[in-house]
């Protein structure tokens, strides 16, 4: 089936994205996908401290974070980012990427102010569609969609396999 967004046009050249994932290979894969989608300003962080530094010192348009290795610290990071003191970055879309999804993660993601949860593995199209979705969904934060499958190459989220 042809995607409804197949002909959508966009330009991410000036958008800055922060990737926070403890797995270097996952960061590389994500970098490959995002650069293909047109992102040029990419910050690659394998720990929360460097992600925090980036948010403190740069204007950020999108955050992609895998909380697996960071536990509660990842959700605290998003909550901290959402605090008003972070200025323009407080409203930046946050997408949680995770290979291991469970109900408590969805609750934590909703409570900390993340915009979406995407299950790994995801397809390039799935990721891009969700980036566009959160970019278009300003003011709808908290309406986390619980996707239909947990492990899916289309990049959906939650199921209990």
């Amino acid at each position: 089936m042809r995607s409804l967004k197949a002909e959508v046009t966009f330009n991410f050249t000036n958008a800055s994205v922060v990737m926070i994932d403890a797995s270097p290979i996952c960061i590389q894969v994500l970098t490959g996908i995002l650069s293909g989608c047109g992102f040029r300003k990419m910050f690659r962080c394998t720990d929360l401290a460097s992600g925090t530094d980036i948010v403190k010192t740069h204007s950020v348009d999108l955050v992609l974070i895998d909380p697996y290795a960071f536990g509660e610290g990842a959700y605290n990071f998003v909550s901290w980012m959402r605090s008003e003191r972070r200025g323009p970055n407080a409203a930046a879309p946050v997408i949680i990427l995770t290979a291991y999804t469970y109900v408590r993660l969805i609750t934590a993601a909703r409570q900390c102010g993340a915009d979406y949860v995407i299950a790994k593995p995801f397809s390039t199209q799935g990721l891009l569609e969700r980036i566009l979705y959160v970019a278009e969904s300003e003011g709808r934060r908290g309406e986390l969609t619980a996707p239909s499958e947990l492990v899916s190459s289309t990049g959906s989220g939650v199921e209990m396999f």
Partner: protein
Amino acid sequence: MSEAVARADLHLELLREKTLAVMADCLAGIDSIIAQIDVTPTPERRKKLHELSCTITALGGMFQRDALSQAAYSFCRLIDATEPGWDAAAVSVHVGAMRLLFTPARVTAEGQAKLLEGLLKVRRHSVAP
């Protein structure tokens, strides 16, 4: 959008060999840790097994190994569900399935589906009270 997706897929393709090598290393790491387990794994070994399996879950489906991702995910669930215990037989079945599904051409689509169904049954049996 379709052009961007095609470009992104091309970039992903450039990482195929490297990613497959990482997944192979993860499988070898799982084998190595399991070989060191006597009765039940230490919390550190259990955590490492979980991490390695999660890496396979995350990457498999991006490189046409959806069934491998699902088998690895099932293994993660098994590790969690049996904690603090350990079901060596169920673990062995899962690891064997992952090894097989690493080369998906060796198993038909129907065979892969049956294998995953089997893993679900094994896991349910393993955690049944």
